[in-house]
C-alpha cells in the first residue's frame, strides 16, 4: 500500500507540472504582465515607468519560458514560469497582486466553503441513495416511472433557478431564513440551511438517476437471486446486499470529489454571500490575479489526485478482493 501511495505521488509530479504549464500558457495568452500591472495600478494616470516598476518588483519583467539572455541552465530557471512554479510544489503560494498572503487567504476561506459543501455532499449522498434504492424497490411500478420523470424534470432546470426561486420563496416571501450572508460558529446554521437544501435539490435529478442505474444493474446479479432464495425480505436484499455490492461505482464517483469540497461552489457562494474559495477564484479571474488563479488551479489538481488515491484505497476497504500494490 505504501509503495502504491509513493508511486502515485511520483506520478503526480509530472501531472502537476503539466497542469501548471497549461495554466501558465493559457493565462499569459490572454493577459500580458503589462495588462496585469495596469489592472493593479488602476485606470487613471498609469505611466510606463510605473508598469515597469510593478513588473520588476514581482519578477514579471523576465522572459516567460526561455531567457535567451542567460547562459546554461539559467536559460530555463531565470524565467517567470520557473520562478513562479517552483515554490508551489512546497505549497508556498506567495502573495496575491494586492500583497495579501495567498496561503492565509486559502486557510481562512476553506472553512466557509466546507460548511456548505460537506453537508450537501453527506446529506445529498444519503438522500440520493435512499431515494434511488426506493425507486429500485418499486421498479416497474408507477412510483418508479414518476420518480424518473421528476428526476429528469429536476435535472433539466438550471441550478440558478433553484437559487433564485429558493431565495424568493423561503426568504423573501415566507421570511424563514436570511436571503444571504454568513456567520461562523453556531449562527452559521440559519445561513447555511437554504443553500444546503438548494444544493441537494439542484443535484438530485442526475444523482438519483445515476444511483438508480447502478442499483438496477446489481439487481440482475446472481447473489441477489440467492439472497431472495434464502427468504430475505426485499428491503434487506436492497439495503444490505445490493448497496454493499454497488459500493465500488458509488465510491468511484463520490470519494474523488471529497477533497474538492474544499474548493467550494462558485454560484452558490456568490448568491448566498458565502466567503469561500469559490468566490475567491472568481474574484481572482476577474481581477487577472495570476498568482491566485495559479494557486487555485494547482490546489485543485493536487486535491483531485488525492481524491483518486483515496478512491483506490477505499476500494480495498469495501472489497477485500482488491489489493493495491
Amino acid at each position, binding site marked *: 500500500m505504501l509503495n502504491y501511495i509513493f508511486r502515485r505521488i511520483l506520478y503526480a509530479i509530472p501531472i502537476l507540472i503539466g497542469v501548471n504549464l497549461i495554466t501558465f500558457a493559457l493565462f499569459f495568452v490572454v493577459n500580458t504582465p503589462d495588462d496585469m500591472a495596469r489592472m493593479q495600478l488602476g485606470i487613471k494616470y498609469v505611466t510606463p515607468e510605473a508598469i515597469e516598476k510593478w513588473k520588476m518588483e514581482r519578477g514579471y519583467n523576465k522572459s516567460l519560458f526561455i531567457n535567451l539572455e542567460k547562459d546554461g541552465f539559467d536559460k530555463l530557471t531565470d524565467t517567470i514560469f520557473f520562478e513562479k512554479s517552483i515554490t508551489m510544489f512546497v505549497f508556498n503560494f506567495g502573495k496575491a497582486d494586492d500583497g495579501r498572503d495567498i496561503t492565509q487567504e486559502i486557510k481562512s476561506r476553506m472553512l466557509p466553503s466546507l460548511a456548505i459543501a460537506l453537508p450537501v455532499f453527506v446529506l445529498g449522498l444519503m438522500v440520493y441513495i435512499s431515494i434511488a434504492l*426506493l425507486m429500485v424497490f418499486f421498479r416497474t411500478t408507477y412510483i418508479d416511472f414518476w420518480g424518473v420523470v421528476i428526476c429528469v424534470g429536476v435535472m433539466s432546470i438550471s441550478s440558478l433557478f433553484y437559487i433564485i426561486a429558493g431565495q424568493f420563496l423561503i426568504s423573501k416571501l415566507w*421570511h424563514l431564513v436570511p436571503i444571504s450572508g454568513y456567520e461562523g460558529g453556531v449562527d452559521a446554521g440559519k445561513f447555511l440551511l437554504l443553500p444546503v437544501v438548494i444544493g441537494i435539490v439542484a443535484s438530485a435529478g442526475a444523482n438519483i438517476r445515476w444511483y438508480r442505474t447502478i442499483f438496477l444493474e446489481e439487481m440482475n446479479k446472481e447473489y441477489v437471486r440467492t439472497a431472495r432464495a434464502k427468504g430475505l425480505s426485499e428491503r434487506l436484499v436492497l439495503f444490505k446486499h445490493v448497496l454493499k455490492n454497488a459500493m465500488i461505482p458509488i465510491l468511484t464517483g463520490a470519494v474523488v470529489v471529497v477533497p474538492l469540497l474544499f474548493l467550494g461552489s462558485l454560484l452558490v457562494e456568490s448568491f448566498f454571500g458565502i466567503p469561500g474559495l469559490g468566490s*475567491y477564484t472568481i474574484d481572482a479571474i476577474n481581477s487577472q490575479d495570476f498568482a491566485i488563479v495559479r494557486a487555485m488551479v494547482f490546489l485543485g489538481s493536487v486535491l483531485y489526485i488525492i481524491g483518486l488515491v483515496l478512491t483506490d484505497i477505499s476500494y480495498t476497504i469495501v472489497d477485500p478482493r482488491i489489493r493495491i500494490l
Partner: protein
Amino acid sequence: MRRFCLGIVLTALLLSACGGHNWNSPYPAADSGKNILYSVFSERPKHLDPVQSYSSNEIQFTAQIYEPPLQYHYLKRPFELIPLTVRKLPVVKYFDRAGKLLPNDVDADQIDYSVYDISIKPGILFQPHPAFAKNESGNGMYHDLSAQALATIFKLTDFPQTATRELIAEDYIYQIKRLAHPKLHSPIYELMADYIVGLRDYAKVLSQAQQIQPDQQTYLDLREYALEGVELIDRYTYRITIKGKYPQFIYWLAMPFFAPIPWEADVFYSQPELIRKNITLDWYPVGTGPYMLTENDPNLRMILEKNPHFHKEFYPTEGMPGDEDNGLLIDAGKELPFIDKIVFTREKESIPRWNKFLQGYYDATGIGSDSFDQAVQMAGQGEATVTEEMAAQGIRLETTVAVSTYYIGFNMLDPVVGGSNERQRESARKLRQAISIAVDYEEFISIFANGRGLPAQGPIAPGIEGYRDGNEGINPVVYEWVNEQPQRKSIDIAKKLLAEAGYPNGIDRKTGAPLILHFDVTARSSEDRSKLDWMRKQFQKLNIQLIVRSTDYNRFQDKIRKGNAQIFEWGWNADYPDPENFLFLLYGPQRKVGNNGENAANYDNKEYNQLFEQMKDLEKGARRQKIIDRMLMILRQDAPWLWGYHPKDYGLYHSWYQNVKPNRISNNNLKYFKIDANFREKQRLAWNEPILWPMGLILMLLIISFMPVINTFYRRERSTAIRRELSK
C-alpha cells in the same frame, strides 16, 4: 412517528426562542435597535493605504478614516472647499525665480514656484492603535516583535494594548514622502512629481537607500530623508512648494492621498511577520477620522466604528435653498458623527441586495435595471419618483447628476474619422458632425439608462465651473433651441454634412464604395448586444455601416494606446470639481499615442491647447469662463467626441435614513448621516413576520404523497415471494 412529532415540537420551540427578532434577519439579535447603519459593497477593496487607494470602492472606507487637511462643504453647491483638520484654508503665495513674493493676479508665466502654508488644529488625536502603545522605556511596545510573540496574533484586535497620540504636521509630511516610496505604487506619484518640488529626486534617493538596506530590514525611515518641496515650519505647520502655478493642487489636499500617516504605524506594519499574516497598513488603516475600521473581512463584511478620540466637528448650519425644506438642516450645529457603527456587507449579486433592502436589512440601495420599473416611475414632467409600492414602505428617491461623462471618441489619427491632411481633416470633421447629429442620445438614455442621464453638450459635467445651462450651453452643431429646450437637429442636416464630407448617402464619392466604420468596444455580455444593435441603427440612418469590434478590456486598452481604434467608447469620473479635470482629456500633450496621457482621441488643436494652458492657471471668474466658452466652441465644432451623456445617480433610502444629500465628489459623508434605529426595528418586525403555513402545507403534501409508497412498501415486505411472483 413519536420521534418525528418530538422533532417538530423541538424545532418549533427552537424557532419560537427567537421571539422579538426576525428569523430572516442576517444580523445578530443583540444588534436589534442599535444605532448601526447597514450598507453594502460588491467589490472587495484592493488598497486601504491612502497613498494607493483611488477607486470609489476603496475611498468609501478610507475617506471616513483618514483626514486630509481640507474637505468639501456637505450641503453647498457648487462644491466649496472648507477646513477639515486645518485652522483655515491655506492661502497660496507666488514667487518669482529670485524668490520675490508676487501679487496674486500676476501672470502664470512669471511665477517660478507657489507655496502653501498649512496649519493644522492642535489637539486632534489618532484612533486607538497598537502602533502607539509604549513600553516602560518609552519605545514602541509592538515595533519589534518576534514570530513567537506573534504566535497568537491573527488580526489587529488581538493586540492587548492600544494607545493614541496627537496629530502633528510631521504626519502629513510623512505621507507626502510616501508618495515617492519605491515599494508603494501611488497612482498620483507621476502627476505630483511634476508639481511638488524635489519629489522625483526624492524617489531616486529612497530607491538608492532601499537598495543599500540590509535584506532583513523592511522599514525605511522616511524621516531621515528630507524632501525639498515639503518643509516643517513648526509642530502644527508645514509648507508645500509647487513648481510654477497649479491652482488645482488645493483640490488634491481634500483627497486621502494627502492624509496624515504616523511614522509609528509605518514601523509597526513593516514587520515581516505581520506582513506574512496579512496585517499591513494597506489593510488596517490608522487615522484621525470619525470612524475606524474594526473588522476587515472584505470577503464578508467590513465594520467601521466611531473613533472614541474624534475631534469636535459639527453639522453645517447653512446650505442651499431648499435644504431646510428637505430636512437637511434639522441637525445644524450638532456634534458629528451621528451613527455609532457602520456594517458594510459584501453582496455580489443584485437580487439578494435588492430583496434585503426591501426587507429593511439594508438602509439604502442603488437601483439596478432589473428592479428599476418596480422602484421608479416617471411623473408628468418626466420627473422621477418612487412607485406606490415603494412609497407605501416609506422609501424615497434621491437623485443627482454625477460629475462624470460617458462618451464615444473618434481617433483623430485615423485617416477616415480624423484625416491626415488639411482637406481630409475638414472632410472628417463634417463626417464627425454628421454622426454627432445622427446618434440620438436622448433615445439611448431613455431605452438603456431608464432615463438616468443628461445628454452632454460638451465634456464638462453639470455642477462644474464652465458648464452652462439653457440656450447658451447647447452644442449648436447638434442642437437647436426650440420651445425653451434643446432639440436635436434633423437627420437631413446630418445627411447634408455627410455629403459635404464626401460620402453622399453613405457612399464614398471617390471610390463608390459604401462607408464602413469600426466601433471598438470591450467584450460584451448578451445584455449589451441590444445596445450595439441600437448603435448600428443610428449609423444606418446615414447609410453608414458600423462594424463592431468587440474585445477584452486589455486588448481594448492596447488598441487605444497604440492608436489602432477608429471609434471607441469611454468614460471619465472627475477627480475634483474643476473644468481642468475634464478639458485636459482633449489637451494635445495629453494624447495617448506617443505621450501616454489621458487624451484617448489623440485630439490636438493648437488654439485649444493654448487656451487650455491659459485656463488651467486662472482663478474662477469671468475671464476663465470666457476662455472655457471658446474652448467648448472649438470642441463642438471639431467634434472629437460624440459627447454622450452625464449619468444621473439614483438612490433609494428608507424613511429612517436622514441627512442624505448625495454627491460623488466629497466622500467623507458618513459622519453626517443619521438613522432612527428604533423605527427601523419596528418596521423590520412588521415586514418580516415569518409565514409558516406554506411549509406546513408542503410537509403535509409530502406525507400524503409518501403514504401510498410507505403502505406499498410494508405490504410488499409482509407478502411472500411466491405470492408476489404469482401476482405479477
